[in-house]
């Protein structure tokens, strides 16, 4: 295998991992605030549909990405109104949001099926991007990849270093105490949920704007669920999300190559490999002594302020 080919494979791994990183980092923030939003898949597919529609209509990838973010945020706002405003069960609402998003995106995207546009351009820095072995991998990705890494770094910094991040973690750990200290529990949770929606929307837009530059219904293909699993896999820590997403992305790409090489294994089994790998990783990590130690203690519990 030439170094060029190796670099190409690594780049496809990064591309496969990016939507997962984006969606998972948003869900991580939501969950650290104590909200379990199972609607990631629904927010993501809405971001994919509207992101493509916006980009196609305007001809601008940036506007498309913004449309995707807005779509995800609106979906999250709906979820927030139900679960934070009205204290409705989060699991049921999240599942409903996914089903709703899958249906609505299919409806809104009907007119865009079969259309094509160019994928988002990749960075090119004279000299640096042409370096052998790693040049293109490090300096030749599309802008979403860099945005995802910046987002993870920013989130890690926000959660561990700022007062607002501390308040957010406290809200997810014990909402009664947070309320007793005068922290705005519901506002914090609502904003965290919106952030999660924006990230999921951007992740969806990435699929239609860079990953596969066209729209087809149901194209998120369970990536929202994988992102949800990644948050647990990462024990709610931002940088571990990147690790987990690369692992899953790597498994996805490897199984494609394995199918091409046709080892005689059924293709369906190979397609299932990344999911199996994720489950095994989850089992392995959750059997440790301090299992769930990092899990926000108030995760999924509705908060009703006594007044």
């Amino acid at each position, binding site marked *: 295998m030439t170094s060029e080919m190796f670099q190409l494979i690594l780049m496809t791994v990064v591309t496969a991992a990016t939507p997962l990183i984006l969606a998972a980092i948003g869900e991580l923030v939501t969950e650290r605030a104590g909200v379990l939003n199972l609607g990631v898949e629904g927010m993501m597919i809405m971001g994919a549909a509207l992101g493509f529609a916006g980009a196609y209509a305007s001809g601008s990838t940036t506007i498309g990405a913004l449309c995707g973010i807005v779509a995800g945020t609106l979906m999250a706002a709906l979820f927030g109104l139900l679960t934070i405003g009205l204290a409705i069960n989060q699991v049921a609402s999240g599942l409903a949001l996914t089903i709703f998003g899958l249906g609505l995106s299919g409806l809104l995207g009907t007119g865009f099926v079969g259309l094509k546009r160019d994928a988002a351009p990749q960075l090119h820095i004279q000299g640096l991007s042409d370096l052998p072995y790693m040049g293109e991998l490090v300096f030749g990705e599309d802008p979403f990849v860099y945005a995802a890494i910046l987002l993870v770094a920013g989130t890690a910094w926000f959660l561990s270093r700022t007062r607002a991040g501390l308040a957010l973690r406290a809200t997810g750990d*014990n909402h009664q105490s947070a309320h007793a200290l005068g922290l705005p529990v519901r506002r914090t949770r609502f904003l965290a949920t919106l952030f999660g929606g924006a990230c999921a929307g951007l992740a969806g837009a990435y699929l239609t704007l860079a990953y596969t530059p066209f729209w087809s219904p149901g194209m998120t293909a369970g990536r929202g669920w994988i992102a949800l699993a990644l948050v647990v896999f990462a024990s709610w820590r931002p940088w571990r999300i990147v690790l987990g997403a690369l692992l899953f992305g790597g498994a996805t790409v490897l199984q494609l190559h394995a199918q091409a090489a046709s080892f005689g294994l059924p293709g369906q089994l190979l397609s299932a490999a990344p999911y199996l790998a994720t489950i095994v990783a989850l089992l392995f990590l959750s059997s440790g002594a301090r299992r769930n130690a990092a899990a926000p*203690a108030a995760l999924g519990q509705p908060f009703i302020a006594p007044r």
Partner: protein
Amino acid sequence: MINEREMHAAPLLSLRGIVKRFGSFTANDQISLDIHEGEAHALIGENGAGKSTLVKIIYGLLEPTEGVIAFHGQPVRLAGPEAARAQGVGMVFQHFSLFDNLTVAENIALVLPRKTPLSGLRDRIAEVADRYRMPLDPDREVWSLSAGERQRIEIARCLLQDPRLIILDEPTSVLTPQEAYALFETLDRLKDEGRALLYISHKLEEVRRLCETATILRLGRKVGSCDPRQESSRSLAALMVGSAICDIRSPATRDLGSERLTVSHLSLASEDIHGVDLDDVSLSVRCGEIFGIAGVAGNGQSEFFAALSGERLAQSHEAIRLDRLAVGKSDITERRKRGAAFVPEERNGHAAAGDFSLTGNFVLSRHATVGLISRGLIHFGKARALTAEVIATFDVRKAGEDPAARTLSGGNLQKFVVGREILSEPKILVINQPTWGVDAAAAATIRQALVDLAARGAAVLLISQDLDELFEICDRIAVMHEGRLSKAREARGVTREEIGLLMTGDGPEGSAHAH
């Protein structure tokens, strides 16, 4: 001094005609009181008297339905805890308002004003900890700390805001006697600095030690105020309850028979990451004996209860014996059929299913032992009759014919779950924290029932944090600390201080374990 100040300056805090209603229930009814600078003011009353509601109003957590709150004579509307803190009110909560997964420093940073730089915080914590002699490690995560250490965080957090009035809600309820003693020294120092204290407790000795004024609440109303130093604990108790409480009658001598419950070398790893592993626990309880297990909550008591009741199975079948029969690996029903009965600590959700009727709850625990079920069908008539017997015998107050368990007050539900087990005439009763959060009258009923049961020849194992309770009714007392059980001591031959030392792990055996 105080009288002079009362004449010249408006009180630091005055409440006038505070009313708080939750629906049709009136938690506070026309309560007025004044607190002056530097005054230690006690708020006493039974559980459910409205003490916690009142302090939540003062701290801005609840809005009064009617009435005026004034600071230095100025009426103020408190929109939330931040508004109360701005008026110089600090609060140390009864159930700690701490975040388990955050560090000590992070927990403290959360309540400081927004602009406070987090960088110098470490030094300020160290300074406060040093001034009031409360050792604190800013980098530890809260879940790894003891109740006494957690309370120090609450107090340090409160003090960093430099409050003029500090509210302490039942601060000693989870402390060992030694920790409580250290707390009083800190509080004395605060009083010397001219800060006012509002001290909520139903432990009257503490109130007499610390406070110069007391406001007494009963059923949401203020029934009087007094200088607690001029009153006896007995007269204060009578004011609180509204009538004198009878003493527990115990038989003069009890014949202790054969061993009924034997635990030998029971070790069990906890399933909970924040739980405590049981380490080589051995004890035996004989016929007619009440055996007490003291200890600060979270030292393995719930794990021990689960192992005894069969909610968790022991590693070896012989580790637990009921009337000499090994049951370590038998399930709950099997143990009940051998004549054992169990009352867990949490009445709502563990001892009783909140949404089930009382009859339903009766069936849940007694189905296997009184022939309530034949061919898979429940004899509801019989269940109802037996439930009615429990209700009548233990004077369970309820609304409606057969209400859901959660609608009963804490004391009444506790009387029901205890009565349900005791009326089955168990040969062995294991009971965890039977009078926690229960009013004095119900607590006395329950303790009397335990004494009477033992007098009829049963073995009773009582797990409790309440040393008064243990000394009142137990024959022998052992202390559980970090999953280990001390040697049992005759209750008549041991002092509170000795038990207290064992509760902190500093007793003679505690240090022996360490070597």
